[in-house]
């Protein structure tokens, strides 16, 4: 078994074992072991990747494996990894593990909950490692469908509607994606040897007029899950209704599929289309960035605040990708990672607060710093990371993106960058507003004084997410070196 296929096999084995679990305790222990193994595998993968690169392997993708699946259509099980993939897998495995910890006390149908969670993780891992568009599409849908059950069964509030809206919108996006993939497939070879393989398609120059039509289709297909304005509407309601671990996975990992797909498929395979259309999508993403941040100011539900903040942060990822410049690309990937850990942390904390106070309305909360100091302090740290305080990951990411974006000297890019950069201030406003209302001041309700402190499993989950934020914030060069190495083929192809 090769090092990458394990990421599909290990979760499947976990699910298979989970089927025999009888109660909550067994389910969570099995999921814990499964996700610990996955995290171990992810860290191992990183070292293996570094060793491979150090030994002089300069292929675009390493650890590649290829098996024929459907021979007549040349659908293959093609997998491989570069630095971006490795980081995304690490992100996913950490968030899944943290999610298992945060769901330690799930009461209703625990076995089914963990099965859905791990199936989702399988889809995410599979998506990141696939080099075959068919495979990628398959895993994309595998990752989306469990969301329906996860939100619908274990969610809160208007969960049925939110779950349905999310699923239908994401599957509708995959409708576009499917058309795009088929388009790529039928233009993948001039001599009739059609292929779904990304690396092989990248060697073919698809005619410019085809790219003109294909790029927006593929781009939107992926960008919907990356919360591109105006297709972001599934995200706030979905996040708000989802149970804690699912919000974490959803915002932390699932939404990254969008940016990753846009970069790896839409832009890498359709470079001419990307250049042609970048202005249009830059406008949309800048609107998303500013609008998301402004909307977050007005919200009173903690989860909505974070959901809109996700829209804003992920808008920045798309903005950075579309700037078509290697510094911003670097920033986009760091932003993806940073946002993944940060939002997951936020949602974990919000879940803890909600579990204790049974409200997510900031107006009803107050003075929590005095009663649940651990959770509150971590919330402040996460907030500071989110608003881009140096030393945390958010600063590195946003800094890189805006420095890169400013390298474009023409008016359009300058204006877009300046408008986009206002988000730094607006983010500070909504973060500090929440911190002020919720954590500072007098304790609003008598009952809050009796709130229990964070438990061991909550603390473990929180630290798991906090450590990478600090690592990215303090050792950005090490990470950006690996990323720079991996975006070389993109640079050669597009710049």
């Amino acid at each position, binding site marked *: 078994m090769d090092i990458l296929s394990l990421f599909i096999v290990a979760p499947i084995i976990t699910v298979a074992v989970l089927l025999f679990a009888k109660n909550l305790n067994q389910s969570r222990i099995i999921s814990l072991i499964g996700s610990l193994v996955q995290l171990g595998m992810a860290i191992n993968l990183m070292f293996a990747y570094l060793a491979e690169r150090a030994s002089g392997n300069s292929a675009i993708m390493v650890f590649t494996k290829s098996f024929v699946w459907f021979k*007549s259509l040349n*659908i293959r099980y093609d997998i491989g990894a570069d630095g971006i993939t490795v980081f995304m897998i690490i992100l996913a495995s950490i968030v899944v593990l943290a999610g298992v910890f945060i769901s330690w006390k799930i009461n209703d149908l625990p076995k089914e909950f963990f099965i859905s969670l791990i199936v989702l993780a399988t889809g995410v891992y599979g998506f990141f490692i696939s080099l075959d568009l068919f495979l990628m599409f398959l895993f994309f*849908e595998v990752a989306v469908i469990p969301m329906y059950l996860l939100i619908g069964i274990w969610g809160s509030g208007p969960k049925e509607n939110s779950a349905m809206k999310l699923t*239908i919108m994401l599957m509708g996006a995959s409708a576009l994606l499917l*058309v795009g993939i*088929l*388009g790529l497939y039928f233009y993948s070879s001039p001599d009739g040897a059609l292929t779904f393989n990304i690396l092989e398609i990248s060697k073919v120059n698809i005619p410019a007029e085809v790219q003109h039509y294909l790029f927006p289709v593929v781009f939107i297909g992926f960008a919907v899950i990356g919360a591109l304005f105006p297709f972001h509407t599934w995200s706030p309601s979905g996040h708000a209704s989802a149970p804690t671990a699912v919000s974490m996975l959803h915002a932390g990992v699932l939404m990254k599929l969008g940016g990753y797909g846009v970069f790896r498929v839409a832009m890498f395979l359709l470079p001419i289309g990307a250049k042609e259309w970048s202005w249009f999508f830059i406008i949309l993403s800048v609107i998303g960035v500013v609008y998301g941040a402004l909307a977050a100011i007005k919200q009173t539900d903690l989860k909505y605040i974070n959901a809109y903040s996700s829209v804003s942060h992920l808008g920045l990822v798309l903005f950075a990708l579309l700037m078509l410049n290697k510094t911003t690309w670097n920033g986009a990937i760091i932003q993806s990672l940073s946002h993944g850990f940060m939002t997951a942390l936020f949602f974990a904390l919000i879940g803890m607060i909600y579990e204790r106070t049974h409200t997510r309305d900031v107006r009803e909360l107050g003075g929590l710093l005095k009663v649940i100091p651990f959770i509150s302090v971590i919330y402040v740290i996460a907030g500071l990371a989110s608003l881009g305080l140096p030393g945390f990951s958010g600063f590195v990411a946003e800094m890189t993106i805006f420095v890169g974006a400013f390298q474009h000297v023409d008016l359009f890019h300058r204006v877009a960058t300046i408008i986009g950069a206002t988000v730094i201030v607006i983010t500070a406003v909504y973060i500090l507003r929440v911190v002020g209302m919720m954590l500072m001041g007098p304790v609003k309700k008598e009952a809050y004084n009796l709130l229990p402190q964070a438990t061991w499993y909550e603390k473990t989950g929180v630290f798991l997410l906090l450590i990478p934020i600090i690592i990215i914030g303090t050792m950005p060069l090490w990470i950006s070196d690996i990323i720079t190495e991996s975006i070389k083929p993109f640079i050669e192809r597009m710049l």
Partner: protein
Amino acid sequence: MNLETILKMQNELLLVAMLLAILIGEIFTTQQGKVKLINFTIITFAAVTLIGFFNQPNGDLFGGMFHTNSLIHLLKNGLNVGVLIILMQSAGWLKQDLIQQKKSAEFFMLLFSSLIGLNFLISSGDFLMFYVALELSTLPVAALAAYNAYKRQSAEAGIKLILSATLASGLALFGISFLYGSAGALYFDDLANLLQLSNLTILGLVFFFAGLSFKISLVPFHFWTADVYEGAPINVASYLSVISKGAAVFIMMFILFNVFKAFTSIWEPMLYIIAIATMFIGNLFALRQQNMKRFLAFSSVAQAGFMLLGIINMSALGVTSVVYFVLVYMFSNLGAFGVVQAISQKTGKENMDDYNGLYRTNPMLSMVMMLGLFSLAGIPPVAGFFGKFFLFTAAAGKAYYILVFLAVVNATIALYYYLKVIRAMFLRQSENPIPHFNNDVFMKIGLATASAGILILGLYSPLYDYIQSISNLIFN
């Protein structure tokens, strides 16, 4: 008649022999022996199905009226497996209701007559055989639809089906007469060479197409579908939606590709429009359905629209994707229908609201239903995803990207109503849910076979490659 002739018609002859055996067995069994007769029939039919998988000779019979090749064998085997699943799913119903009404053996005879008709239909090599087989396959089903004699709806279903079917076959016959009038031949091979593009032949094509469309329930010939499915016994509805539709789609594709291969400029736009109309109307009507049978009826209308996406690409790719999809669709729909049957038989409940909280009382049934619905919706990793993807590939191969897009939009609409059932089963809770119950052995095997088919058919690629290799042979 020599041995080779017999072997070529092996499947049909075995079915006829079985039918006669049931007829004789019926005479000699007492009322108590009827249960044994039911078990005997199912097991014998399982044996017949198994025999079908052994190698069979290809070729023509009766001067080309009857012809067979590997693809047709495959489809016949598929139909046999489908009918076997249906029989297993209806064993409980037969034993519970029909023995008292003293018509369990007739059920088998009618069903097998219709199946024989379908076998001849997909093997037909000329329009005469085609027409006879069409009648043979349809008329018994009308009797079956009216099988719940004491239910008004069932009688209505029977009448509706027979009226629509006779009108449809009348139309088809009318069309065929035009073709005969202009070309002077009825054999498919002769017609392919003789038919000239003229108003008369186009009219013939259209009438023939309309007649067959009734059987596939394409829009605008779908009006009978929902009422008949609702009134008929569930196993008859699943027979109509799966077996009869699958065979009809195949023969439609076969005739379009062979007889009318010079007419692509006529029937391609026709299929294009009908595919869009069928998908949209089927899906939009399915959105509001509460009765599970009506719901599955409209879903099967929509699915028929998807099948046209494969037919529109006249190539080996098109043939492969359609045959593959028909097989996949068969298992998926039988999974869903089987669960509806099991629940309706034990509790008499057929509405979507009755399914609220089903997962908590009957987890296995809910899982089978979920598999079936996911497969119908085209969610990976179950077979339906692959089936749909290949159909879309076939249509995209002809550069019909808009059609593919509309089809995928429809797949999303369809996902909404399939999720509604999943929502009822998994998300909602009910004050008086359907209590837990155990199914009989046959039902369990039937559901397990359908689920296994749904799971394996997609991930296991050699089947698809096998179909592709035969279609390549046939197409050259």
